[in-house]
């Protein structure tokens, strides 16, 4: 089979360029490693370049929420080249290493944090058949890599030799380690439903998107992924009024930019993961599977577009939350996690596992989804009732104390 440019273009649109090149080049020992390397470079470049779009989008959307226009000078009316200007500015800044810094830890942290953020993209299914590597432990891989990013935060905080940085790192680690628990627990439910940890299999199992099947787990995952990324309302790690800027306070120039880069890459990744696990990934009412009469897989492109649209909708919701919600206090944050999210997600896992086991084998996907939805709603209602009772009890106790105090002051007069 010889190389034909038209066929190559077609395979580009079809997103099967790797398969096509493999056919053209034949079975030679260097083909697979080369294609793998190209794939790695493509995914990493995508991760790095998309950040330019994300920064522009976030600034623009936040500006609209705050009744401003946002970037509007560089690169035309919409300020499209603003992130490029920002990046160039950061590149020209001096890189300072504070005296007394732990050189190894200080210099390693920005690189490691970007590496971990990029590595997670390996298991993201962009379109049917377009995935870096379909691991049978896909979601577990994501969790493992994201737990490594905790270490890099600690490295940065300790290495900077600055008390604000260290305090910020402590906060960040406490928060990330705590919110990992409900995140893992809420991810277990889609794994139970799909009977696989592979991200591709989870997308394939979503005839009904899991956000409809188990809405409460989806919400818990969304909240804990917000905390995991350290975005508002969980941005205690860089609370300016308390600890100035958190663990990356001592970094300047491109090293600081690396932290920002990693933050945006992982923010988009979490949106993508939410899309994959709960919104059906690249699925779009079966359109992602269509082929034209000549066998041209147009569906792959539709799948890609569907995935990106969903992912960016989730990302805009993240920005929306950032623009509207105030910050948590640290004790509220910990209470919310350990006393509310963790017990609730444990209860949800129990219910989901029992319901799924109780359903007869071979039952219709929609019936299964309905039963799960009902059980989820029941769990939610029970939770709200418990919260209401607790709230009322606290309120009456408070009122009694106040009444007693009133009586005492009246008696004293």
């Amino acid at each position, binding site marked *: 089979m010889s190389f034909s440019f038209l066929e190559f273009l077609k395979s580009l649109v079809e997103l099967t360029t790797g398969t096509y090149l493999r056919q053209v080049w034949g079975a030679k020992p260097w083909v697979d490693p080369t294609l793998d390397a190209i794939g790695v470079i493509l995914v990493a470049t995508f991760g790095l370049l998309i950040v330019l779009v994300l920064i522009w989008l976030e600034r623009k959307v936040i500006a609209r929420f705050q009744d401003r226009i946002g970037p509007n000078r560089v690169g035309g009316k919409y300020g499209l080249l603003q992130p490029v200007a920002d990046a160039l500015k950061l590149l020209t800044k001096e890189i300072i290493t504070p005296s007394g810094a732990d050189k*190894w*830890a200080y210099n390693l942290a920005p690189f490691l944090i970007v590496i971990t953020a990029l590595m997670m993209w390996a298991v993201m299914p962009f379109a049917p058949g377009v995935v870096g590597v379909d*691991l*049978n432990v896909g979601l577990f*891989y994501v969790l*493992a890599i994201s*737990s490594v990013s905790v*270490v890099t935060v*600690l490295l940065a905080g300790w290495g900077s030799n600055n008390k604000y940085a260290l305090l910020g790192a402590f906060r960040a680690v406490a928060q990330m380690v705590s919110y990992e628990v409900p995140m893992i627990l809420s991810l277990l439910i889609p794994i139970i439903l799909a009977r696989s940890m592979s991200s591709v299999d989870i997308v394939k199992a979503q005839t009904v998107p899991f956000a409809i099947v188990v809405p409460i787990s989806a919400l818990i995952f969304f909240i804990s992924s917000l905390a995991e990324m350290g975005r508002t309302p969980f941005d205690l790690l860089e609370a300016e009024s308390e600890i100035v800027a958190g663990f990356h306070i001592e970094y300047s120039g491109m090293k600081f930019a690396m932290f920002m880069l990693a933050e945006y890459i992982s923010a988009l990744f979490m949106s993508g993961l939410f899309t994959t696990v709960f919104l059906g990934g690249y699925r779009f009412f079966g359109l992602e599977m269509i082929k034209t009469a000549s066998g041209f897989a147009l569906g792959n492109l539709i799948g890609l577009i569907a995935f990106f649209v969903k992912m960016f909708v989730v990302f805009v919701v993240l920005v929306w939350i950032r623009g509207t919600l105030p910050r948590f206090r640290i004790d509220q944050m910990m209470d919310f996690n350990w006393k509310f999210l963790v017990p609730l997600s444990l209860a949800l896992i129990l219910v989901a596992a029992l319901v799924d086991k109780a359903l007869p084998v071979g039952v219709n996907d929609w019936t299964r989804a309905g039963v799960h939805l009902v059980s989820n709603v029941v769990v939610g209602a029970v939770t709200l009732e418990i919260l209401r009772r607790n709230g009322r009890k606290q309120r009456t106790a408070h009122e009694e104390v106040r009444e007693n105090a009133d009586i005492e002051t009246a008696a004293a007069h």
Partner: protein
Amino acid sequence: MIEQIIFIVISLFTLMMGWIVVSNNNLFHAALALMASFLGVAGLYVMLDAGFLAMAQLLVYIGAISILIIFAIMLTRRMMQTEESPFNSQPGLAGITAVSVFAVIAFIFWQMREFWPLGAGEGAMPPADKSIILGSVAKLGEYFVSPDAFVLPFEVASVMLLAALIGSIWVAWPKTEDES
């Protein structure tokens, strides 16, 4: 061939990091080297097609245990004093232990020499069945809850962890006034 070279490189990396852990004066750097060593072990698991084990290694050892160790080090006052020697007075005893452990492992490997996957001639190991590797995670899960397999050790371990949890809560519980 390439796989073997990568395997050897990762092993050397793991051992080198292990050496840094025991020989470095700076406790914080030693903890970082320990993490790198754990990472090397995870890499070895990946090379051996044990993806689940590798991820568990990352999540548990790097994501949890190492962080715990680093926190403990940071809460220790004299950690930055680098003059002290990291060696104690028992190098001879430790050396004997290490050599004997190595001897036992080497002996076992030598006994198993007919299974060594070297060479392509007669008696060489057939390549592993990919379907077994792909299904290994599901198999592992089944074995953990199957009464014919590991349900008892699994449950015993979980009871022990529960006991540890309850114990830690009891230790950390604020003392009430009549106790103090």
